[in-house]
């Protein structure tokens, strides 16, 4: 039995439909990440589950109970907000115990719970500070603590790390991952950051313009993206897309595009046989292009290096192949110079093929 089930969930603002019949199931103790660009409807979905946003049509089930008409307090969910949303007139302890105090729990129980959670989050020294006296990371921790003090079955996170600076975000992400191992609860996490999604999720749900594009484990989504959007969204640097035509000369099939002509091996030929037309989109991850000046022209792409972004051990080359922009990842010590034309071997096993009309993955 799925813990939370969304059935044909739809959201309309007036005549504008922002969420189109979402169907989604989340198992118990599963970490689900809703990811997508801004305005894709991921936050709206979460807020509808939380009960902060009304449901236009469809239904939400929690433990097989239809909840879409219930108030948030009747759904037993805890939520962490993007902007922390701490009560500024209460100190940390009061903030974390607000829900328990509303439930009129015994004082002893509340104190024990605060003690337990503040130890878990390293907040014991700050219990009597007001939110204004805390740093961003501490505030975020309090916000999480506030959710943790409640014994909710499900935790909702609405972009909880997006307000932190890069270093703190990495640190909090790791803490969240560790926390997740200790607290075996159902968690739904919304983010636009695909790295957060990849690192934290048991299941990623990629959303785009109010539709679910694909759902699955991070690995599934990375290796077998269902369509061009998912392929381009997950992974940094993003996948390169090249307009390509399938051509044939004699027995040989070629992937031919502007400035390159790749000879297909047997497996690739088989995959191409599923294509709906000769015109396809070829997707190559920047990490699947190998710098190899000796590679034969029929298995490589020549790229003119426009820019090199040094990141440390790796560099990202931004190159140009007859007007098409390509990104390549390579070791920083590779001797290259801007303006050079370099040859990169294509790993045919790792290419992605998409239909040009439907943008769905082929093969």
């Amino acid at each position, binding site marked *: 039995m799925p813990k939370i089930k969304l059935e044909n969930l739809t959201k309309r603002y007036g005549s504008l439909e922002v969420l189109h019949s979402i169907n989604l199931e989340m198992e118990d103790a599963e970490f689900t990440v809703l990811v997508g660009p801004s305005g894709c409807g991921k936050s709206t979905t979460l807020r509808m589950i939380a*009960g902060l946003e009304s449901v236009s049509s469809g239904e939400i089930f929690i433990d097989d109970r239809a909840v879409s008409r219930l108030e948030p307090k009747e759904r037993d969910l805890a939520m962490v907000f993007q902007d922390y949303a701490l009560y500024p007139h209460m100190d940390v302890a009061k903030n974390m115990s607000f829900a328990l105090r509303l439930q009129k729990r015994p004082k002893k129980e509340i104190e024990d719970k605060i003690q337990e959670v503040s130890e878990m989050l390293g907040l014991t020294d700050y219990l009597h500070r007001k939110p204004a006296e*805390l740093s961003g990371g501490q505030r975020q921790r309090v916000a999480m603590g*506030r959710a943790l003090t409640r014994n909710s079955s499900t935790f909702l996170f609405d972009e909880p790390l997006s307000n932190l600076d890069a270093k703190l975000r990495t640190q909090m992400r790791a803490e969240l991952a560790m926390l997740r191992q200790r607290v075996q609860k159902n968690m739904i996490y919304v983010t636009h950051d695909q790295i957060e999604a990849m690192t934290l999720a048991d299941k990623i749900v990629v959303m785009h313009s109010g539709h679910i594009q694909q759902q699955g484990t991070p690995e599934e989504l990375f290796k077998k993206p269902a369509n061009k959007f998912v392929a381009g969204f997950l992974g940094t640097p993003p996948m390169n897309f090249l307009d390509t035509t399938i051509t044939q000369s004699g027995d040989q099939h070629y992937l031919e595009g502007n400035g390159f002509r790749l000879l297909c091996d047997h497996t690739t030929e088989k995959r191409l046989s599923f294509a709906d037309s000769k015109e396809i989109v070829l997707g190559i991850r920047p990490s699947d292009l190998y710098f190899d000046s000796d590679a034969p022209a029929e298995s490589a792409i020549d790229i003119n290096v426009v820019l090199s972004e040094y990141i440390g051990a790796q560099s990202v080359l931004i190159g140009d192949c007859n007007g098409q922009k390509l990104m390549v990842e390579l070791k920083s010590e590779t001797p290259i110079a801007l303006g050079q034309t370099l040859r990169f071997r294509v790993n045919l096993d790792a290419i992605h093929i998409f239909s040009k009309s439907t943008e769905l993955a082929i093969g």
Partner: protein
Amino acid sequence: MAASTEKSQHPAFYAVVVMLVIMAVGPIALMFINSFKFDVDIISGTSGLLFMPTIQNYETALCDILPYEIDHLDFCALKFGGAFMNSLIIALVSTVLTLVIGCMAAYALVRFKFMGRDTVSGTTLMVRMVPPAVLLVPVFGLWNNEFCISKSSFLGGLIRDTFGGRGDVCLAGTHSGIILIYIAMNLPFVIWILQSFIVQVPRQLEEAARMDGAGPFQVFFKVVLPLIKPGLAAAAIFTFRIAWNEYLLASALSDRDTKTVPILIVNNMSEFNVEWGVIMATGVLLAIPPIIFTLFASRQIITGMTAGAVKG
């Protein structure tokens, strides 16, 4: 650094400051000093600061509550104690009610979507534009003739039997009648002030409270209200002072038993004699409660109440 900026001030700067201080403190000082003078000294105007101080004016003003016999007075005409209580009841009750109604109305206008919200929001302040004098005649008529309970009815009879008096039981001449018109007068402005405070309360806070299991009233009283305390304090000062100082409506709507201090003061003027000393003494006494109230309420005005709530 501070010393150098002080040195560089132009003399004209000090002239302006001194002028402002004189304008602000002068009348109050004058009132305070004159309240300790005999009428003769006040009217002669020659003595200035050199005079024989007396508390006789205060004795006259407070004649109905002083425990001892006052030598210079054979009859206590001035009922300051009673008027003071009236003022206090009217000002406090109308302030509290205005704030209670005002904060809820403001919250509804800011947060709830309903038909005509913008119109209501826009017109609340327009009501405030109507001068009280314009209200006086219709309200006087209504309070005296319309909002009445017949003395022959059960309730009216009961009230007349209990409290005495003659005629129908009307709003005019009661505390409630004055309180009601003060609430009506102050409410638009209070709503308007509080709206701007409520708008600043981040919506996520209310959502967080709802997620924590708070109902609409708990959200309002436990999260929103503590955060708009500065607004409530500002509105309270404003409302209290208007209710405390108001003369025109109170003079028309009060009777002998419900008149407030400002009306009492004017009673000291007759066509034959203006008792300046007593007027000044009553004025000083009148000024004390609002000062205390303002000092107390302004402590609640702290900026940055919502600091740390949300990012940004």
